[in-house]
């Protein structure tokens, strides 16, 4: 009760207590996360991938775009750890530079769907009535649509390319986050501190942003973590179909499809990007699983 009375008399006084509570929630979650083996493996894999992606330009790698026709389709060797592709480019370097593309696409696409879906869900859940019905029907229509087909259709309309891939993957996931946000908001809205805030006349936008949103965020973050893996798979799928990143970009999906032609002569051109996609997605799934258990107090007690 004291907490909800706070904001009207001295709005500033809420800030320190809220920060302290939040940081301890984050710290608890982090500890629980590192306690589980899957969480540790997931975090470790991701840290490696992120470091490689971020520091790719200063690593002693060959130029991912430099062609060497004389040395094309060479098997793995001391000079080219993962071999070379059909244009003699170093596959190791291309896979590491590819991590930059895939991680960015995955994270940005999920942010797009999280923000758009979050806004839709928050409005539907807080306003209710006609808003709720119309928005959710719209989301049903999008959900009633095979996601991969929708992504392909969006890219077909907007033209192939990395930016449109990002947009397509982001848009197709909006309904998931809209529904999730809405249902969390609906359950949080029933809680006493929201009623208390309403009764003392806190404006509804403030209730939405300061009271409901922070308490609804954890399931959304868990969904988002797993969603990054899915987004990476889908973006690479579009790249594989030739609708995503265009040559000569070192995108994993595109590398797979150009390597497929040489499956008889140079299977290593497939293995490296394939393994990279698998390990990245595995890392996000491990992290997502562990995060879900970590933020769920029921499972933390076990």
């Amino acid at each position, binding site marked *: 009760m004291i907490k909800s009375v706070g904001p009207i008399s001295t709005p500033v006084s809420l800030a320190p207590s809220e920060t302290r509570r939040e940081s301890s929630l984050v710290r608890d979650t982090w500890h629980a996360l590192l306690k589980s083996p899957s969480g540790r493996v997931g975090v470790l894999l991701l840290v490696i991938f992120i470091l490689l992606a971020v520091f790719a330009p200063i690593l002693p790698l060959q130029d991912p775009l430099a062609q060497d026709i004389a040395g094309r389709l060479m098997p793995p060797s001391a000079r080219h750890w993962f071999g070379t592709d059909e244009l003699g480019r170093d596959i190791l370097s291309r896979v590491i530079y590819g991590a930059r593309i895939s991680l960015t696409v995955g994270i940005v696409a999920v942010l797009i769907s999280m923000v758009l879906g979050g806004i839709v869900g928050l409005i539907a859940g807080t306003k209710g009535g006609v808003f709720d019905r119309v928005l959710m029907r719209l989301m049903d229509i999008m959900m009633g649509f095979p996601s991969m087909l929708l992504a392909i259709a969006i890219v077909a309309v907007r033209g192939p390319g990395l930016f449109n891939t990002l947009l397509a993957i982001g848009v197709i996931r909006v309904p998931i986050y809209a529904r999730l946000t809405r249902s969390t908001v609906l359950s949080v809205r029933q809680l006493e501190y929201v009623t208390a805030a309403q009764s003392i006349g806190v404006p509804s936008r403030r209730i939405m942003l300061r009271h409901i949103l922070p308490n609804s965020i954890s399931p959304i973050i868990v969904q988002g973590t797993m969603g990054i893996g899915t987004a990476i798979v889908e973006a690479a799928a579009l790249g594989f*179909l030739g609708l995503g990143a265009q040559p000569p970009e070192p995108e994993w999906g595109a590398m797979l499809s150009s390597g497929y032609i040489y499956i008889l002569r140079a299977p290593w051109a497939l293995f490296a990007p394939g393994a990279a996609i698998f390990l990245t997605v595995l890392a996000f799934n491990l992290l997502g699983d562990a995060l879900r258990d970590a933020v769920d107090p029921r499972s933390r007690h076990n």
Partner: protein
Amino acid sequence: MLKFIIGRLIEMVPVLIGISILVFFFIHLIPGDPAAIIAGDFATPESIADIRSNLGLDEPLPVQYFRYMGRLLRGDMGRSIHTSNPIAQELLQRLPASIELAVSAMLIAILIGIPAGIVSAMRRSSILDTLTMTGALIGVSVPIYVLGLVAVWFFAVQLRILPPGSRIGPDIELQNITGFFVLDSILTRNWNALVDVLKHLVIPAVVLCTVPMAIIARITRSSLLEVFSQDYVRTARGKGLSETRVVIRHALKNGMLPVITIIGLQFGVILSGAVLTETIFSWPGIGRWVYEAIQKRDYPIVQGMTLFIGFVFVMSSLIVDAFYTWLDPRVRYD
């Protein structure tokens, strides 16, 4: 029950209309003038305009939409721009290939996924459980196109025991009765063809089944564990029933509800993923057809097939719901 299904069918109508409007206007945003494509490279502006008015493409979009829907309700999906074959007819020819693949994949997924989930739940925290769940995690993390390429490399390129793609060998003769090659070869007692068809089916079906299988195993396990903690299961155990009997007669019936939902949803997912699998394995179904149509900007095919797959998706969720209600009478009272 009937009332429930009719109610759901009526509820579906606005969703289906929404999908059709979305698809129709979306497709018309795709760059490229279909009339110019049909007319070819050396067409005059007059001939393009001629074709456009013949196809009704010069009418306002809403008029075109209602015309299209009117024809669609009579079973006419238009014609392909490139081959001018009727789309509905080609759809019927290609559909069995996609269904055969999807059903085979789902069968494998169910036959392995459910028992794996049950065993995992019964022997919780055992090595078997850890192995199954690790397998399931890997299953959901390997994209089908990565697994598909590796499987083709291993079985078709290295071992040379399975073909890399297509539905049947070029030198095998099979009388086409139903379009389902497995069924056709059994009906005609063409065992030679049956072996060949199954060989072609193995890699695509196994690759396609991994994600649904992993998800089914996970859901079966967690749903059973939830049921195990309930009083009536404790009572059954307290009565001294054998563990097998407790699981099969008491826990499974309630524990299967979420599994059925997932199976239904995965069916839709498999169909929409057909674009990818069928492209990798040169499988002559609807997925590869859509992919080729997108690349050739054959928009009547893209439009018709997007609508069709959306329709199947919505229908499969309806069937799941109906089945669910039949199994769990409590849902009806909601």
